[in-house]
């Protein structure tokens, strides 16, 4: 790794129609630097990187490599110039081996047109050894954990001799431990001369690893900061106004327990037990947060409660009544408010107006309907009052919900679910893809619902959110309940629980020593120390 590379984006402008996604953005990535692009969802970070990677043609501006202007017609050009990208959603073929995936697109052949993977295998082994990736070239990608798959993506870029590595929201799919490992890998890459463009909206990680931070807001660079800046400072730069990152919430005053799940098991069509014998209960006036890495049974758990899952056994009692085996409508009518994890897929009908979405599960109830005749006036009336109450920013109640920003879409879903008297409130990923300003608001509403005496269940893969909202924290791992711990449990312990350790084991581990996965890893990485203090 002798060749180093200086990358400069000069006045990059990208517009889609009348929309300015990038507005004269200047960024200089010095060789061997971890340069963080910090910004909210939709700030234009990904657009910028897609311009850099040759996926979009910039409307204006130029890309300079080692002070030479270059133009990329596609990812191939970018790769040839030494730029590699790891997308948030991996571009891997699951049924191929690591070596096959790495070779894909640049396969070399033996005489007679046979695929020659030996070269690739050797290179993978070399890189894997150098950085301690611990990747077997002949493993099937689908059998690897997400964190390792990500390393395969990084290897793919390095094999193609990438000097600048773009990581687009790389930590979204990782456990806290895997995140720490990734941060270590990034540091190692840096020390061997690879520059990294790190795209994130998670302040903790950004502060832990960056050399310099460029903050982007609404398509513009609003400034740069060094990693020493405080989280509040960075957050306000990102949002454009002062935000409070900590939620002032009164301690919970739990009353009687009205919601109880006993020995709940959900079996997927392929026979897997996606939820495996889970039991827990929630008291009125209490928030139970369910933590865990994405895909460990959270979706199935909430869907089972709502009646959306087919093969479910066990028992779900709300106010002493069995919910299992009832239709979704009956469950909703029993007083369950449900905010699904993906608002675009499950929560909203994008082409429907905001007003219609606000009655999506109330449309057949008075006052919105008499018999089968609906009253558009009542629907509108309801919409206008909800829009006011939840501060939904929309041109009008008649605008299509799909045109609103993520935060406002989420407010619509939340407003709908909180607009009737509830006996149980379930919110899955309540603030995913939502701007920081709206997060504050949505969190307050959730706590307010708790304080009216509703049992609240929050499912989140964001540890920060879990720690902020929870009165108790349940951790799921591979469909099983690892344990329920009180609020205030340390991030380290929770992280280990998310990787499957029982609460006791996790406590023991964090007290005595760090889990050592790779010999070359430092016993205590700086990110841990920092992470624990700041959030």
């Amino acid at each position, binding site marked *: 790794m002798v060749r180093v590379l200086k990358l400069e984006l000069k006045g990059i402008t990208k517009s889609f129609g009348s*929309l300015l996604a990038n507005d004269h953005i200047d960024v200089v990535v010095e060789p061997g630097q971890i340069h963080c692009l910090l910004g909210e969802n939709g700030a234009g970070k*990904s657009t910028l990187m897609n311009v850099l990677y040759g996926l979009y043609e910039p409307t204006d501006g130029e890309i300079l490599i080692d002070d030479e202007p270059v133009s990329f017609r596609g990812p191939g050009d970018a790769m040839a110039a030494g730029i590699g990208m790891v997308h948030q959603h991996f571009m891997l073929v699951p049924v191929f081996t690591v070596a096959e995936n790495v070779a894909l697109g640049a396969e070399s052949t033996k005489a007679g047109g046979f695929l020659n993977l030996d070269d690739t295998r050797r290179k993978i082994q070399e890189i894997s050894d150098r950085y301690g990736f611990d990747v077997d070239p002949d493993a099937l990608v689908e059998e690897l954990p997400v964190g390792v798959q990500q390393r395969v993506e990084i290897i793919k870029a390095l094999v193609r001799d990438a000097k600048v590595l773009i990581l687009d929201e790389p930590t*979204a799919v990782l456990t806290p431990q895997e995140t720490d490992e990734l941060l270590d890998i990034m540091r190692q890459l840096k020390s061997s001369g690879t520059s990294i463009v790190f795209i994130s909206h998670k302040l903790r990680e950004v502060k832990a690893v960056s050399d310099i931070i460029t903050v982007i807001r609404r398509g513009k660079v609003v400034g740069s900061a060094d990693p020493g800046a405080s989280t509040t400072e960075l957050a306000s730069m990102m949002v454009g106004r002062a935000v409070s990152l900590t939620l002032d919430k009164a301690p919970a005053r739990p009353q009687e327990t009205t919601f109880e799940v006993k020995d709940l098991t959900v079996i997927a069509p392929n026979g897997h037990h996606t939820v495996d014998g889970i039991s827990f209960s929630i008291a009125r006036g209490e928030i139970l947060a369910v933590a865990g890495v994405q895909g460990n049974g959270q979706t199935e758990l909430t869907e089972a409660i709502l009646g959306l899952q087919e093969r479910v056994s066990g028992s779900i009692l709300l106010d002493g009544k069995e919910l299992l085996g009832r239709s979704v409508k009956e469950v909703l009518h029993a007083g369950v408010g449900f905010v699904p994890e993906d608002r675009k897929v499950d929560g909203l009908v994008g082409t*429907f107006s905001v007003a219609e979405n606000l009655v999506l599960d109330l449309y057949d109830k008075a006052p919105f309907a008499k018999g089968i005749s609906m009253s558009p006036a009542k629907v509108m009336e309801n919409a206008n009052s909800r829009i006011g109450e939840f501060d939904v920013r929309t041109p009008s109640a008649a605008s299509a919900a799909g*045109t609103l*920003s993520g935060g406002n879409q989420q407010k619509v879903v939340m407003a709908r679910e909180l607009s009737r008297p509830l006996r149980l409130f379930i919110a899955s990923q309540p603030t995913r893809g939502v701007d920081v300003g709206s997060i504050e608001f949505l969190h307050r509403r959730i706590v307010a619902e708790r304080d009216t005496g509703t049992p609240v269940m929050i499912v989140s893969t964001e540890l920060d959110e879990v720690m902020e909202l929870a009165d108790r924290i349940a951790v799921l791992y591979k469909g099983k309940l690892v344990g329920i711990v009180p609020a205030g449990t340390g991030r380290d312990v929770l992280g280990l629980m998310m990787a499957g350790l029982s609460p006791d084991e996790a406590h023991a581990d964090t007290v005595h020593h760090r889990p050592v996965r790779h010999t070359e890893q430092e016993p205590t990485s700086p990110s841990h120390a920092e992470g624990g203090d700041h959030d």
Partner: protein
Amino acid sequence: MTDQNEPQHPGGTPAGPPADPHADTRHADKHHTDKHHVPTPADEETAAVVSLDTAGGAMEPSAVPATAQSGKIPGGPDTLVRRIFTGSGMVSVLAVLLALILGGLLIALTDKQVGATATYLLARPTDFLSAVWGAATRSYVALFQGSVFNPDGAGVAGQFAPLMETLTIATPLITAGLGVALAFRAGLFNIGAQGQIIMAGILAAWAGFALHLPLGLHLLLVLVAGIIGGAIWGGLVGYLKARTGAHEVILTIMFNYIALYLLRYLLNTPAFQRPGESNPISPILDPSAVYPQIFGTQYRLHLGFLLAIAATVFVWWLLNRSTVGFEFRAVGANPKAAQTAGINVSRSTILVMALAGALAGLSGVAQVAGTEKVLTDGVAATYGFDAITVALLGRSTPWGTFAAGLLFGAFRAGAVQMQIQTGTPIDIVLVVQSLIVLFIAAPPLVRAVFGLNPRRRKRATAGKSRTAATTGGAA
């Protein structure tokens, strides 16, 4: 002749002289098949665009932050079909206009005088151009006279006869089109209007000639029998889809076959075949079982047309003002969200298909109790397939479908007059119809022709063409 009513085999029948009024089936079949082919390349294009758009996650940066977590567009592969069916009405108008222009050029191409002037095109291009213009306008004027108003008609009655004929032909197109449109709003691609019309026709006709009941009651029974026949045939498809997950396109196509061959079989049984007749034709319906003619016996226009208007109003109300329609639309636009909101998707599927079948059933009744008064195996003609086009052109809205039904009725009514007056082949109308479908399926093409593509042209041009289009479309 009978083979021509089969739902498929595009162009399989050799072009024979169109002796009976339904002989043009094969052409309708052709454009029916066209519709299946058209989306494929466009689909890929859309997929490419979508993947590009979502890769960056920021087509509209601050307005719609693409939650990077969900790169999927809800609705999946049906999105394009949905867009075609529910796109803007302006594209419909422009598509009709464009199809008429191209149709005009085709007419000119077959015109003798145009051919003659073309030989000295370079010497006197004006002759050629005026011949082209003359040929096209003559044909379209004849089309208009044959479908709306004929100034040469005998008296006021004769002058308005073409319009009455248009409305008569439009009646089954409208109701069957409404059936297709309604199902489509619930996310179902109902190809089965043909079979639903046939089943309705069978039941309605049987009630009409086999039972002998008092006036009023008899017709009511015929109507109800037809509606139920269509509803069962459609509802069965909905049931199978809801219970087994079978695709409704396959189901409806197969159900069309079943209905058609059942009809043919029945027409050869003593219960249906007219006594003393060797042809597959039923007895004539009782006078008490047929629709009264609205403007007297001089026109064929019957009560079915008023029912078509009522059906349009009903579908409008259902979709826009009822909880049932709310469910249909929610299921059609995002079934997962609908399900999460407690809407029973299976029930909606069954119900909407039954209602779609009932609407198509109205067409069946209009045929046997309105225009034909007997049951033959050509009872559905190609109305069931044309209904798809009508719904498409009408953007799956009730009144859009109504208007599209009128337009297609006019084409059919006027085509005969056009052939008589100008010698322009009737087939040209089918070409125009097919072109309309083609253009609707490719909105970017239409916009490009009229210079409306937002990224390339300025607003001013767009505005100008839009006015041009509206005036042109009205003519």
